[in-house]
């Protein structure tokens, strides 16, 4: 029951979509079932994300309750979740500050705290990327050199000053980078990776539908 039921459910839902692909998706029965199941996927996915939120709150609260090290920061996390979530959950009809519309608390917190902090977080990565590039350069292997030379060329090509610098050597360089690096080698590698990943995903999907792949169920 504990293993067979999930395996049967995965098999049936998977087979429905495979059949849908080969039959007329516009038909009332096949199209209707697949559309319903897609809605089910979104709904269960929503609950799964909420499960993650509850889990974060639970773990953080346990740290606060037991006064573990740095519990004060966990309390700040919990308060931040509540400050952002509660006004967003309350109906707009109660106050213009509630809900998710323009001018609400939720909107203000997103525009003035969350978005700038996210931009700052990603901006700090510029320094770590530079540090990683330096370490890769120190590796002194052919592969690392190829990577860095290409990265330098692309970075120069993407800014007007860099492009002007490349033009000093030859005005054809920017065009060659675009044609042979971006539209040639880069395109080929992306295609190779996409084809490989898609074949892997299809094979894994078949294993899941047939019940060979069971790791998603965790320990039995």
């Amino acid at each position: 029951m504990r293993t067979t039921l999930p395996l049967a459910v995965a098999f049936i839902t998977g087979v429905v979509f495979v059949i849908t692909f080969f039959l007329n998706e516009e038909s009332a029965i096949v199209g209707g079932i697949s559309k319903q199941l897609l809605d089910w996927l979104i709904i269960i996915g929503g609950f799964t994300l909420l499960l993650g939120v509850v889990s974060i709150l639970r773990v953080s609260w346990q740290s606060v309750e037991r006064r573990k090290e740095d519990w004060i920061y966990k309390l700040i996390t919990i308060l931040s979740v509540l400050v952002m979530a509660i006004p967003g959950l309350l109906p707009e009809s109660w106050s213009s500050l509630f809900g998710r519309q323009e001018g609400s608390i939720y909107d203000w917190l997103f525009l003035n705290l969350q978005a700038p902090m996210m931009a700052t977080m990603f901006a700090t990565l510029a320094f770590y990327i530079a540090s990683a590039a330096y370490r890769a350069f120190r590796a002194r292997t052919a592969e690392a050199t190829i990577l860095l030379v290409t990265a330098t060329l692309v970075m120069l090509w993407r800014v007007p000053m860099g492009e002007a610098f490349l033009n000093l050597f030859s005005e054809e360089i920017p065009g060659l980078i675009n044609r042979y690096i971006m539209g040639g080698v880069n395109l080929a590698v992306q295609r190779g990776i996409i084809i490989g990943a898609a074949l892997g995903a299809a094979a894994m999907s078949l294993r899941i539908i047939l019940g060979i792949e069971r790791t998603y169920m965790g320990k039995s």
Partner: protein
Amino acid sequence: MSGIEILQIWIIAFFTLALFSFLYKDNPFYRLAENIFAGLTTGYQVSLIWDTVIIQKLWDPMMGGQWWLFLPGLLGLMMFSRFSPKISWMSRVPLAVVMGITAGIFLTTQLHGFVLPQMQATMNTFVTAKGFADYFLASLIAVGVISTMIYFYFSHEHVGVLGVTAKLGIWFIMISFGAHFGYTVMGRVSLLIGRTQFLIEDWIGTFSYIL
């Protein structure tokens, strides 16, 4: 500029500097900003999911007569059984629904939507080629696609012809990763420029109103 606007800019500037302070070393200001950021991001998701999924996809249609939607709702609630070891096995059922649907979609769409069109596009480059430069580019793409795939083929040891092709594949991959690396650096640097502009123009700009 009003007092509220100045306060707003100072709050953003405080958190921007607090996050940048990690570049020196870990400190209480950074940890405060980090935890607030994590909390706000989580809270943002809660409101978004509640409104767009639970209300719009589940509650409203159910109240509108689609009573059978209680089933995915029930399955969603079963996910929470993970918190109780005795009944945690129940969460496998909704997980199986998600895995089954995703696998069913992937099995066909990955082959039909990715593998075949990408192979077709690679071959078509030869068909549409005009002149030496186009044929050279088409050959470069074909060699790149094949050697990249061979590099990720681990069922046989990379020796002989397979080894040489895999070696060529890693060179192609390094050029591509280098291009991506360059793009990523440019993206991050433009964000850094944006934050620096905010601090210099907006934040320092408020000093003239205060002093």
